[in-house]
């Protein structure tokens, strides 16, 4: 592991923090910090000086029209896309622009994709095993054994996602909604500090959506979350009356506040809701 890079403004308060290398420093309460992030694909400006901070323990919903740059933002945070300019920090000490995808995941960022992506030819329990927080270097995997701790953890997660009776089935045999649940289960096993969810409720039945909301509430106590969503009812259910909602358009943030506040924002109505 490379040493985490110390942010130039990290010590601005004049206080001295005891830093453990590799651990996320959230002593100022911020888990994710984006400043003036820009990404261009040829002529297209996908992100235009995007600035955003997420508090530790917060659940933040991000809404915006298609092409607003939401997925690109997720790609930048998870290391899939390198920004052209700008600052991306996890906590105060981990510079995400310098790490690759596996390291960012190890640092504590989990990601759930729009389409449920599970390992179709692995059984359900193997999916959970792969996701579990552990030493993930190749020589460790070669000698790794399924200890009773891991076994218990897998069982517990199976119970929580109601997939117990599918444990030894191939994940490819699950329904769309069950795959979504399995993916949430995998994230529970991964124990991220910050979880990015890209349209988690897409393509789910009402019952499955309700179950998902319930599971997300379980996850909520474990990590901070950033949810990109189109379904307004789902956003309302997640953020409640006081939760913060951020509206993105054309690669930057145009408004944030509670759902009611942003719904009344004229710029938002013009660019998104009014259409």
């Amino acid at each position: 592991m490379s040493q985490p890079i110390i942010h130039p403004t990290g010590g601005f308060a004049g206080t001295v923090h005891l830093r453990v290398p590799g651990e996320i420093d959230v002593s100022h309460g911020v888990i994710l910090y984006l400043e003036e992030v820009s990404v261009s694909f040829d002529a297209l400006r996908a992100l235009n000086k995007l600035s955003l901070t997420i508090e530790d323990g917060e659940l933040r919903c991000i809404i915006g029209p298609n092409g607003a740059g939401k997925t690109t933002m997720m790609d930048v945070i998870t290391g899939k896309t390198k920004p052209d300019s700008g600052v991306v920090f996890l906590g105060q000490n981990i510079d995400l622009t310098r790490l690759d995808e596996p390291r960012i995941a190890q640092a504590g960022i989990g990601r759930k994709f729009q389409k449920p992506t599970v390992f179709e030819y692995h059984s359900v329990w193997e999916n959970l095993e792969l996701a579990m927080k552990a030493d993930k270097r190749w020589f460790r995997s070669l000698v790794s054994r399924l200890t009773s701790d891991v076994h218990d953890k897998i069982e517990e997660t199976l119970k929580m996602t109601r997939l117990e009776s599918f444990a030894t089935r191939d994940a490819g045999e699950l329904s769309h909604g069950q795959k979504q649940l399995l993916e949430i289960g995998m994230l529970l096993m991964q124990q991220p500090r910050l979880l990015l969810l890209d349209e988690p409720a897409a393509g789910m039945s009402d019952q499955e959506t309700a179950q998902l909301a319930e599971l997300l509430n379980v996850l909520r106590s474990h990590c901070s979350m950033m949810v990109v969503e189109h379904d307004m009812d789902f956003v309302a259910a997640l953020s409640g009356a006081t939760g913060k909602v951020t509206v993105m358009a054309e690669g930057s943030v145009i408004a944030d506040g509670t759902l009611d506040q942003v719904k009344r924002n004229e710029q938002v109505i013009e660019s998104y809701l009014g259409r």
Partner: protein
Amino acid sequence: MSVVTEIQPLALPSRQPILSRPAWQILILIVIAIGVLVPLCSLVIPEENPLHLSAYAMTLVGKIMCYAIAALALDLVWGYCGILSLGHGLFFALGGYMMGMYLMRSIGLDGVYHSNLPDFMVFLDWKSLPWYWQGTDRFPYAALLVILLPGLLAWIFGFFAFRSRVKGVYLSIITQALTFATMLLFYRNETGFGGNNGFTDFKRILGFPIWAAGTRTGLFLLTFAALVGSFIVCRIIVTSKFGRVVMAIRDTESRLMFLGYNPLGYKLFVWTFSAVLCGIGGALYVPQVGIINPSEMSPGNSIEMAIWVAIGGRGTLIGPIIGAFIVNGAKSFLTASLSDYWLFFLGALFIVVPLWLPHGVVGLFKKLVRRS
């Protein structure tokens, strides 16, 4: 009326079994049968007896077992990790060449020119051994080279290819180019590996006359042991968590990276291990067939290996062994009786297998078992 479904408590083994119990039993039976019958039929039973195992048959099966080791190695990277190498013939040939160097040095003064140097060097009017031939008269060093050279080349190639995230067809083409370029290099006399004639006319191995029935039997049994050993080691790899990660790389690499796995180390290990296995196969091949030349590195050979794997069944380990036997058995039969039709047969396999046998012979077998 509600149906109460009893949920069985999850009982996962701490490690997946390497082989199922019946599979172990079958394997042990085969090992005992081969270990007893082959020496008996080749050495004890006289030549006139129809049960006698001829040197020809033993060499043929021994050769195919070497191919089976290579097929197993290729399946490990292709069937399990999704890396289609069309250059595994290179690692096979390199292993063979390293063994060939030892065999050439073992000829001693018995060559055509009665020189301490291998014949082709005398022919080229070289006065001393090139530096890389030093020490190759010692078997342990040559055996080390058999493992090191293919392994090192594979590691270096793999490091740059996988780090740059070269995948799929592009990687296949580069591996093909690699074996082709090396073949051209080995065709040159100046390279010091006997040019297009390669190495041949071996006399002895570890002091034993190489064509004696006892030596042939020994080589056969050694090859068989290597094949069984390779199979078991490959099973150990694919039934471990490592194996599950590697299969996940094959299916959805990006997802795996977001779980915190760096595919580089995993790919490099299977790739390098596979190359080493292939090199061992090649090293056992050369003393049995008695020749190694650069045509072993021709692109066609590597492609043929992929056919063995595909016909037998990718991602099954037993499949490639079966595939190597079916294709090479058919090849030696057809080239002997209907030599003009071999390539047509190979071409037909190319069409039939992807269309009707996507999971190979093993896949077909599994399907039939499930149906009955």
